């Protein structure tokens, strides 16, 4: 069984983790097109090569990010999500259309 390094709990069997899909930026739901939104919701890149993914250490419900090489089946690096998501994310309604 593969080993994975959890940034919080150290080396553990891969069985202790839950895969959470690719790390992708969510498009602004108030401004993107339907096609962009559908792409985000339904499509995974499923790349052969280096991928950046969400993983969760199930026992501690701790989410982190892993970089894996899917061709070599090697986990290159794991790190806290705070390395990528540093700032508070805000959402705003679209501006009402200006009256002519």
């Amino acid at each position, binding site marked *: 069984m593969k080993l994975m390094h959890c940034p919080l709990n150290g080396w553990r069997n891969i069985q202790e983790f839950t895969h959470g899909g690719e790390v992708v930026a969510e498009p602004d739901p108030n401004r993107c097109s339907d096609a962009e939104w*559908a792409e985000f919701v339904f499509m995974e890149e499923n790349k052969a090569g280096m991928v950046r993914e*969400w993983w969760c250490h199930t026992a501690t*419900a701790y989410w982190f990010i892993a970089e894996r090489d899917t061709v070599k*089946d090697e986990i290159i690096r794991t790190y806290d*999500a705070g390395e990528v998501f540093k700032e508070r994310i805000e*959402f705003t309604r679209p501006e009402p259309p200006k009256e002519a």
Partner: protein
Amino acid sequence: MERLGAPFGSDIDRSESVSFRFEGAQVSGYRGDTIASALLANGVTTLSRSFKYHRPRGVLSMCGQDSNTLVQIGQQPNRLADRVAIEAGLDVTAQNYWGSLENDRLAHLRHFSRFMPVGFYYKAFYKPRWAWPLWAKLIRRIAGLGTVDLNTPHGYYDKQYLFSDVTVIGAGPAGMAAALRAAQAGAKVLLVDENAEIGGALAYARFDGAGELAEATHAELAAKIAAEDRIRVMTDTMCTGWYADNWLSLVKGNRLYKLRAGALVVATGCYEQPLIFHNNDLPGIMLGSAAQRLIRLYGVKPGNRAVVATANRDGYGAALDLLDAGIEVACVVDVRADPPEDDMSAALMRRHVPIVAGATLREAVPTSGGGGVRAVKIARLEGAEKAARRYDSFACDMIAMAGCYAPAAALLHQAGGRVSLADDSGAFSVHDLPAQLAAAGSVAGTNMLENVLGDGVAAGRRAADEAGFSVAATSEPPRVAEADASAWPIIGHSRGKDFVDFDEDLQVHDIENALAEGYRHIQLLKRFTTNGMGPSQGRHATLPAIRLAARRTGARLDETGSTTSRPPIGPLTMGHLAGRSFEPVRYTAMHFRHLERGARMMPAGAWMRPEYYGEARAREENIAAEAMNVRDNVGIIDVSTLGGLEVRGPDAGEFLNRMYTFAYLKQPVGRARYVLMTDAAGVIVDDGVACRLHDDHFYVTATTSGVDGVYRTMLWYNAQWRLKVDVTHVSASYAGANIAGPNCREVVQKLCDDVDLSPEAFPYMGVRRGHVAGIPALFLRVGFVGELGYELHVPASQGEALWDALMEAGADAGIRPFGVEAQRLLRLEKGHIIISQDTDGLTTPHEADMAWAISRKKPYYVGMRSVSIQEAGGLTRKLVGFEISDSDAPRPKECHLVIRGGAITGRVTSITRSPTLGKVIGLAYVAPDQAEPGTEFEIKIDGGAMVRAKTVKLPFYDADGARQEM
């Protein structure tokens, strides 16, 4: 029972006799014997019948690497007689015969063998297709492998994890040397071997003419290992597979070990190969190493007059050992035209054994009954793949074969390694091994003992180094030249019975015919012929098949490739895989109170919940009575299994606004509000209520089976949003009881003096904190069942005390607990949906008529954009309430389809007979135009009949909510 005296028989204890039964007869052996060695010592040489032609078979490898010795032991089929130690009372029977082992009535099948070529089953029985199941039944009876007794009691099997700095698989000379070297460096070492004793070939083989080297080396290494605290030895332990990051499965007895091996040394040795000649499968024909094991380990003479056939130095060692055991050696046949002179050949010549060089075995002559060998015919080789027509015949009762070697490289293959085969010398080497894995000894192609030991030391040092134990470099002994060896020629015999694969009775012409038919790729060849697919997994059959394929295609062996080796390498039982079954089950604080009241429990996720209380034969009546008592009086249900999350922090309201469809920023403290969660695709995934206990604090409920996912999803989103909010999972921390019914207020009032329960002070959807029977409680006025009710959440450790207090306080009023079924009925009357019963993996809020729970003023909630796209696209189905007015109509079931004009427009999701309303009601998906109240539609039930139903407005009961808000 005649045995050789010491030092022969190193594995047996002559002071202890052990008796067991074979084919109903009493057989006696010594402690330490295997079933096979004890049988041979008693003159029993036929151990089984072959799979296809029912030919008698005896010992071949004497180390559990072939299928000839598969026997049935009691209720266990397919145990290896040359692996299982005898125990008093074992009941052993042979397999795959009709009649008796000695006189198999199906042995005549051999006469039909020319009608049963490879692919015979596919070709002969394929047409007509309907007949195949009949043929299959007969064929399986003829070609059986033991019998399974379905009444076999469960054995106690379990699993264990193991950890090591360095692991060495195989305790032969290379493995022992590696283990010692790694341990000397400071590493903790696990040394694993499948045999009863460590030593490998040192325990039975011969490495020098004088016959002293093996024993001396064995004694020295074994003593050092015994004295080394850092080495843990596991014998009788089979390594059945390599998995990622040096994770190995080991089997010992009834236990499966999962080993994180650290740095790994594979020293699994190699498989000596049989020779291919006419009748090469008769009992009495065995590998040279098998004869040596019988002599050295068990003190058993495998025959009286032997012919030894060899392609290398080891056949000479076997011949010398046979001589030492008092067996006459008629001759040694050496395939090499000009075998080198060395200490072995010199010793043999001193003992006047004729050596026939440049010759090969052509056929064995069976004894009159066919159960043994009478003589062997030998022919001169004329080139690499051709023999002279003239035979020389030698009388003998056994043949020892020392063909060439195939590496026991399954672990290396599984780790990504590659074996490369030399075309003419029978030599091989391994490549492409991952870091933290080294191969040492004969599995890596080394054969001289000095080199094998040197390999072991080097691998042990490297493994220790990889495991983090720095090692000072030491001078390693210089390598000696590897011994000369040759590949054994494969020359088919005109009368066949020149077996390549003993498991499946495959002969040279079977392989050649398949190649001629075009199955040239080694993988196709394997699948078409089943070569190497039997119990011995090609240990002896793969190499000749590769060579035959290479010869046919003119390719080099390396270009021909090899077959894949997957775990398990050796046989595993289902018991090993199952182990002890760990199935966590969650009990609420009131669990045993339910049992005491006769509850029928049902699983809800990992939890157990009361389905209803009372006798199973009165199920419907019990459920109806429980429900009516809620409607008319007061009932109580254990809701401890409900999911619970504390959402706290200055952004708690904002966080809920983003996670759920409703609006929460302005929700007043002391109030509960419905929560509905959609995923990014706008599909409903969970619901519950959010209780605002403080500006910065919500207590949020979630469904029993959904809460783990909801919790994880919340944390995932906030790992990105970085809101000032904390989510704590408290599902099990609070026990909950929902007391409901028109009389429930009086019952709670008796136990509570710090919450004003009046409807004015504590209205519907209110939340309060107080005490019940002195137990701190959160009071929720929510009404899933549609009556006045209080959901009381208390610390889990006090849940049973709460239940006891409420039951006691309600006794006068006639309180009775109700189960999940009554609750489902009551909520259905109120038209409340249950997520994942009334919704599926595609249900949108609009389909479920939940648009009222969507806030349209927020800038965001998960799935918002998808929900608005769905809304614009219009509905394709809608969840509606329906009733069936015909009281004589058969009652549809959940998942029965709504059909219109032959097309499916929806399905029933919930259905029950409402005791309150006196009719059958339910929820169903229907086409949007069937959703208008009053529309009639048809439901197709089991058997195909159609039942008429009518869409009605929800809820079915108490439409203005007066009862729950009283």
